[in-house]
């Protein structure tokens, strides 16, 4: 599938009087990996939640594969099936083991027969080195393992787009790499991804384009080589300088 996967036009979103997104315009082609960078509170997470229809928007338009999903009469459940989202805090279901976490949505939403769903889940878990964790409950896993399970859980729905919301921010430094490897593998496999991240090195190596957000607007949108070495905007420069000073790049 080629062409435009995500198209966002003049998206506005407020929480009460607090305007978090102030006119976002963004277009993502199929198989493209876009990293969203910016300070906490710049609107990265909200943008991802809006694309997944977890947050109602105030104005603007979001289209997925050419279909407007923000209009009335849209079945949000149908839209969400096509999009996987992974959260900063994993959000695995603590009362289910890993296998059940992964098979819940396929069996209940796609009506995949249980045996088939479990076979597919085991195959995915195996691919990401988690097969021996299939029967464990989430509280038995390390943060890195939990986050990889969360990614597998999203992939089990065979999404066409993956949204990753600061998926390594809650992890101990030594666990970050194993999760980033998984994401890099997905990128190499051609998955369309929109990734909010603080990992600048990862963004530089993996993204096709990097967008810098500040105060609910995309300030700069460029290939990583350009944005990191030769930022056009003063605000981008200032942000990157702070990151360098904090030794994150």
């Amino acid at each position, binding site marked *: 599938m080629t062409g435009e996967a995500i198209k966002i036009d003049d998206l506005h979103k407020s929480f009460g009087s607090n305007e978090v997104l102030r006119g976002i315009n963004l277009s993502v082609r199929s198989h493209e990996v876009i990293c969203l960078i910016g300070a906490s509170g710049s609107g990265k997470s909200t943008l991802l*939640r809006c694309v997944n229809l977890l947050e109602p928007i105030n104005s603007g338009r979001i289209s997925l594969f050419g279909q407007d999903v923000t209009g009335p009469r849209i079945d949000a*459940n149908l839209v969400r*099936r096509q999009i996987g*989202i992974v*959260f900063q805090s994993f959000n695995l*279901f603590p*009362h289910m083991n890993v296998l059940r976490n992964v098979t*819940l949505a396929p069996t209940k939403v796609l009506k995949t027969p249980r045996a088939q769903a479990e076979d597919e889940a085991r195959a995915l878990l195996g691919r990401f080195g988690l097969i021996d964790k299939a029967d464990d409950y989430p*509280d038995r896993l390390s943060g890195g393992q939990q986050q990889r399970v969360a990614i597998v859980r999203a992939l089990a729905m065979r999404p066409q787009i993956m949204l990753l919301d600061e998926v390594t921010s809650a992890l101990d430094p030594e666990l970050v790499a194993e999760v980033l490897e998984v994401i890099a593998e997905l990128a190499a496999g051609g998955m369309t991804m929109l990734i909010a991240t603080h990992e600048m090195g990862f963004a530089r190596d993996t993204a096709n384009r990097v967008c810098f957000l500040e105060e609910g607007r995309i300030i700069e949108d460029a290939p990583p080589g350009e944005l990191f070495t030769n930022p056009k905007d003063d605000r981008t420069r200032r942000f990157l300088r702070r990151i360098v000073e904090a030794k994150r790049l």
Partner: protein
Amino acid sequence: MDANSPMSPGQPAGSFTATGRGPRLLSGGGTRATVISSVSTIVVLAVLVIIFLLAPGARAFEHTFFSPTDMWRSFIGNPKLGYYSVGAAIWLNIRMFLVAEVLILILALLVALIRQSTGPALFPIRILTTGYVDFFRGVPLILVIFALGFGLPALNLPFLSDLPDAVYGVAALVLSYSAYVSEVYRAGLNSVHRSQVSAARSLGLSQGIAMRFVVLPQAVRNIIPPLLNDFISLQKDTALVGTLGVIEANKAASIYSETVFNFSSFTVAAILFLILTIPLARFTDRLIERDRRRRLALGVQ
């Protein structure tokens, strides 16, 4: 149930910290602690017995409340002499309790789900359930029992006015307790973090399926101790149905005392209720303790 039951003797000293287990009935571990707690228990009991024996009316009191022959007679019952068996009557309490419990669990859940709903179409039912909870939490249970037990038969409705009194009693228990238990459910539903709903909905699960498979199981797990607490209370309150003339344990005991002029029958009823409620109370303690340990384990990680 693991091998280390809550009161297993002979735990090595310091096992409290070693296994991460919580305080016990005989708190701490070690022989010294066991000796101290045993001695203090004996002393306290002895003091209570001495105070009782020294009381001027001790003999009369003992005869009126703890007469072995009267206790046995009231337990067995003798319809020819005009009194019923308390031991047989307790089965009615148990049956009322079991039926009421199941109905309460269902009705209370419905009420809680409606009160938690957000859809505008459900607004009138939401108001109605709020009114229901306010009303039945505020009105004393015994008045509800009277209202149903004496009121419904007086209305001369077809079917509804010709039921056994025990049914009116159970209906009153269900109405009253469901109001309380729905609040327990609500607290449980609120205790499940919103991010769990986000995660479920983001996978394409509908609101109903997310509730059924993600939110509710976690909510119920969190509220089992307070739920059991309410059910201990419910077991006792089945005695109030006796006010309708239903021969349950308390009513049977009361008939005995009025016939023979001895209150030992009430002691029998009390003992029977304790036999019912204490195991449930200990079971509740166990669950609370298990829950505390689990939280502790998570916190350490």
